[in-house]
């Protein structure tokens, strides 16, 4: 008991300023990484201010001002002493858990905060690229004279030319002739039926049921290949889905009609736009009434009771 004095090395008094100093350093570095002078400047100010405060704290004893430190009070814990009081005469040890519990909680809390700061952006990078910046370039399929009237043409094209062949898509395109468009004041405009080739059962490549006119194949400069085909129906080789010439399901497991694509006529050329899902088509060709829905993955219902299972699909949120 006599030499306990040796166990008390000189330590500076407790100080909160290092925390602010550390935040300042972190902000300064963050600003340098992000090349943001504002963040760097704020960090630098914090570093200087808290650095000075810290230095004042640490050197206080040297400068002769000894701070008054209040005696640490310890709340008596609410839990009663253990019932197994073998020696009731001995004074019960003071339950002094509040400080260690505080340190425990702050360690866990700060650890969780650091973990979240590191994890959240990484999780974002894991997930978000699959849902953002997916703009597929409009595919230019060449002059509309490439498309004979009332005949399907198998068009393959690159949806994202910079991605290469992996983005090659196929659509079945039928020219329905010039029709009056009431939306543009009854002007005569070319009408197309454009069926996207992916089966809406599970995404296999649907094939036209008819002979391909290989002699009439056209290859354009931008990787587009056009092959006329004599087909009035489309079948899927994977699970036997069958569609008619408007893309309506005739047989098999598909859950909706074939997807379609928006199209534009630009300077006499047919340009394909984004895909959309189709519930059902009534009528044919230019007179078809198309129940249009936001695009969703094959296999997901867009109408009827089953559509309640897919209340929000990605294409409704992004785009």
């Amino acid at each position, binding site marked *: 008991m006599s030499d306990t004095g040796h166990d008390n090395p000189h330590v500076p008094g407790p100080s909160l300023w290092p925390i602010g100093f550390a935040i300042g350093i972190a902000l300064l570095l963050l600003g340098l990484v992000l090349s943001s002078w504002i963040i760097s400047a704020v960090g630098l100010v914090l570093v200087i201010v808290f650095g000075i405060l810290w230095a004042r704290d640490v050197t206080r004893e040297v400068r002769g001002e000894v701070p008054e430190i209040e005696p640490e009070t310890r709340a008596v814990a609410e839990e009663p002493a253990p019932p197994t009081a073998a020696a009731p005469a001995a004074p019960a040890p003071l339950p002094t858990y509040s400080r260690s519990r505080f340190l425990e909680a702050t360690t866990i809390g700060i650890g969780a905060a650091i973990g979240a700061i590191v994890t959240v952006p990484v999780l974002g990078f894991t997930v978000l690229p699959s849902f953002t910046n997916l703009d597929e370039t409009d595919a230019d399929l060449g002059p509309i004279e490439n498309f004979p009237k009332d005949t399907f043409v198998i068009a393959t094209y690159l949806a994202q030319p910079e991605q290469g062949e992996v983005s090659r898509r196929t659509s079945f395109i039928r020219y329905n002739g010039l029709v009056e468009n009431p939306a543009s004041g009854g002007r005569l405009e070319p009408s197309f039926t454009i069926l996207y080739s992916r089966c809406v059962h599970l995404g296999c490549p649907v094939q036209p049921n008819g002979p391909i006119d290989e002699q009439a194949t056209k290859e354009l400069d931008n990787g587009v290949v056009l092959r006329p085909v004599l087909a009035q129906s489309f079948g899927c080789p994977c699970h036997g889905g069958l569609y008619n010439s408007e893309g309506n399901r005739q047989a098999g497991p598909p859950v909706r009609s074939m997807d379609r694509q928006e199209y534009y006529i630009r300077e006499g050329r047919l340009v394909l736009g984004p895909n959309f899902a189709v519930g059902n088509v009534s009528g044919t060709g230019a007179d078809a009434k198309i129940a249009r829905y936001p695009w969703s993955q*094959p296999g997901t219902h867009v109408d009827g009771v089953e559509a309640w299972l897919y209340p929000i699909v990605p294409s409704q949120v992004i785009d």
Partner: protein
Amino acid sequence: MAKAKSRRHSVVDTVVLQPLDWVDERTAAVRGTKWFLFRNVPRDSAWAQTLGSATLTAFIVQAVTGVILAMYYEPSSRIDPVSGKPVAYTSIEHITNDLTLGWLVRGMHRWGASVFVILLFLHMGRVFLYGAYKYPRELSWLTGVLLLVTGMLLGFTGYLLPWDQTAYWATVVGINLNATAPFLGPWLAQFLASGYEITGDALPKWYSLHMLVLPGAVIGLIFVHVYLVTRLGVSSPPWSSERAGRERPAAQPAGARAGLVRGSGGGD
């Protein structure tokens, strides 16, 4: 003679036993190894109880051959200018046709995948039929179920990597099967495809899942699973005269067993 023997003993002491003491004093590794390997098993354990270690062996074969294949495989959907085929498929052809014994290691990995999944099911069937999932081995069963799921996911993600027509379209169907799950299905499918359809980003993503994420998960789960088997022991078959489980212990105050109540030592 006695002198020679004692001399040999002292050599053994110096070369083997003392170093093992030294290591064990610091790590408990020797005692741990004995705890892990030198266990009592029921007298009527038979071949059926070896399915678990057979599955583990199949996984180790997959891990080793997979690491070697990763040295030559390239997960890129770009068209190789020389072969005119995608880089991933070209690298698979290179492994199979050009590299010495590449056909063998790729074949081991390709067929070993099926062996692994088949053994998983046989092992699960054995545990189910023997009732070996009952108290106190419920968590062994649960970790085993997670291993079954991650093992199947390994098969699913590995199937895309050859990047041929079969791989591509089978994966399209698999992704769209996921899309039909209610509510989050379309989101999961778009994450797996890395876009509306499979894009060039999907192949390296699946490669990363296949060779980093899922094997890591499987290895972690195997450690838990094997620890539980070691701790709880092998169960005897249902027809055995030996007892397979143990009696449930007498009731204690809540938390006493885990050593969370003051005055209780915890444990068995």
